[in-house]
């Protein structure tokens, strides 16, 4: 169990009614109470039941994380809150689009590294690439860092989408 005062990163899944304002409620809760958001991903996941899944990566002490979960849980349109970090093993993936500009050896090196990271090339010109990469936040960080030496132009990232491992769902 996490020590009282130490700050840890948690990945939290929130199932909400897909209605106007629900994202504003969640974001307002974090900003209004001074909680940290490292990343936040939201999309409709069940059109019939009109539900969306929010995946939020946050950091805090044990008490703060418990507060965040309790505060999320009492929002009226929230169905369920799960702390994937506490509940067991989980998989977490992010998608990034990484634009790199370069010529000659640097261009070849970028392509080689992209291949090593299993990135797809989704756009290319004679002087640039856009790579599509999925993986853990660490993997994407590592790739972006490598590209920064090879002509990195810009990056777009989705934030984490995460599910628990095993057969059970939320």
């Amino acid at each position, binding site marked *: 169990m996490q020590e*009282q005062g130490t700050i840890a990163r948690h990945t939290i899944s929130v199932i909400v*009614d897909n209605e*106007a*304002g629900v994202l*504003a*409620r969640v974001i*307002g809760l974090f900003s*209004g109470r001074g909680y940290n958001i490292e990343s936040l991903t939201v999309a409709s996941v069940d059109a019939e039941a009109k539900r969306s899944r929010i995946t939020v990566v946050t950091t805090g002490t044990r*008490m703060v994380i*418990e*507060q965040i979960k*309790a*505060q999320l*849980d*009492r*929002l*009226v*349109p*929230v*169905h369920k809150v799960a702390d994937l970090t506490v509940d067991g093993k989980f998989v977490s993936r992010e998608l990034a689009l990484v634009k790199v500009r370069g010529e000659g050896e640097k261009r070849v090196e970028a392509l080689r590294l992209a291949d090593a990271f299993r990135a797809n090339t989704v756009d290319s010109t004679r002087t640039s690439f856009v790579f599509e990469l999925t993986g853990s936040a660490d993997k994407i960080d590592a790739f972006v860092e490598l590209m920064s030496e090879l002509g990195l132009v810009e990056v777009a990232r989705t934030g984490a989408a995460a599910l628990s491992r095993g057969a059970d769902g939320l």
Partner: protein
Amino acid sequence: MTTTDTQILPAAAETAEMLSGAQMIMRALGELGVEVIFGYPGGAVLPIYDEIFKQNSIRHILVRHEQAAVHAAEGYARSTGKPGVVLVTSGPGATNAVTGLTDALLDSIPVVCLTGQVARHLIGNDAFQEADTVGITRPCTKHNYLVKDPALIPDIIYEAFYVATNGRPGPVVIDLPKDVQIEKAPYKLSGQKAHRTYRPQVEGDEEKILDAIRLLAKAERPIIYSGGGVINAGPEASELLVAFARETGIPVTSTLMGLGAFPASDKQFLGMLGMHGTWEANHAMHDCDVMLAVGARFDDRVTGRTDAFSPGSKKIQIDIDLSSINKNIPVDVGIVGDAASVLKRMVTLWRDLKAKDHQPSLDAWWKQIAHWRAKKCLSYTDSTDVIMPQKAIERLQALTADRNPVISTEVGQHQMWAAQFLGFDRPNCWLTSGGLGTMGYGLPAAIGAQVAFPDRLCIDVAGEASIQMNIQEMSTANQYKLPVKVFILNNEFMGMVRQWQDLTYDGRRSESYSDALPDFVKLAEAYGWKGIRVSDPKDLDAAILEMINHDGPVMVDCLVSKIENCFPMVPAGAAHNEMLLSGDVVVQPSSDEARAVV
């Protein structure tokens, strides 16, 4: 998880009548048993006001400012236990209501506030009297709705009342575009059995309740710390609190919001705790070995410096709101549930397990408490030349106690003196702005209570500064012949600000003098009230009796000692057992850190 089995919506009707949005609103409010609406008309709610005009079953009280409408609804709610209903127009109507909504959120008062909105096609166009009401009120309500389809009105109104009154109560806003109020749709309820997401846990976890009983049965220095949640849980919760205290012999202290849940005249009562709490209550909280918090949230006014708060105790907390548990102070046993339901189980278990037989003697603890009580922390130096504010409240208590009055307050020194010196033996008689500390709360709150109880004595204990923040409501009281009494402790200062400036800013009384005060007696008369001024201690009783015996609204301008401070006081940045008493030499806070703790 345990859930309530209350059906939130009645079964769907076979045939649905076509009604305008405004008609549906009035129909739904009527079905929900609403008796009174506090409101103020305007362009965006004219269709609803037209429906109000056409009926007689729901009373409308016209306030003079929308903030006061919410406070009046709060006063109505707090004194009756029923939700208060507010109706205001769009734009400034809604923004004026924001302070009241925030007040209701912080004090967990059930209020449903209907706001007008510009027509749907104008939303977002910066239309006349347009404000993003759901955006503005999102952080200051428990929940809010923007109704874009008139067919949804019945379900949303039923749901709003369910949300406002279940779990931890709070304010709910329903924003209604004007064209939605006019458009017709079938009046049909979906007949949903339970709320799709919001099902607060009412019954506590049995294992945790047993843990609590085990801890309390072993405790040598136990204390019960009771809060506003006990009052929100209804009169039964107060009775069960008394029953549990009787069974166990444990001393009881109360927060500002919880006063009245446990009888102040009971010998087991230690008085209010916290920043201006009693010596005995704060010391007992600090030195206890087991603390039972019921419907109380370890607010900073209660704890003082958190690292020095009750360091040696095991803490049990009962709260309907999971997010209140472990928020400020970590507890050993957190029980999510309704105060009445959990206390009932605790009383039963205590008896069934014969816990009394194993309980250590509390004699030494009570002896220690008697020692603290002997400090007589509320004592003050009386005077024959000038009315002491504490004296005025003591006499008010003595002369009104047999009438079981409803007391409201504004915010400041007078509020703390009222809390210290008015003993409340029953719940729902004490209306005060505890969480938000809203000056201007007391008069409209007293009006709301007086609307609910036309024959009861309703008194707003006020200060000369606070009363001016919603003084226009004197007109409301006059219009509806509400015999509310306003008892002003006039010390010509924003007394609590002045007290803090004297104690922590070397007496630099920056802008805290109440200059250019109105003549409150003439002001009262101008509003059709009776006005009384009293300044000589010899005349105090007569003035109070004249006030309570007058059949109509009365404002008493009670001129009191100008620079009296409110003690005991836990000063800025201090631990809760480091209290100043009247006559103590005050040491200025040594650090900016301490000064920053307001």
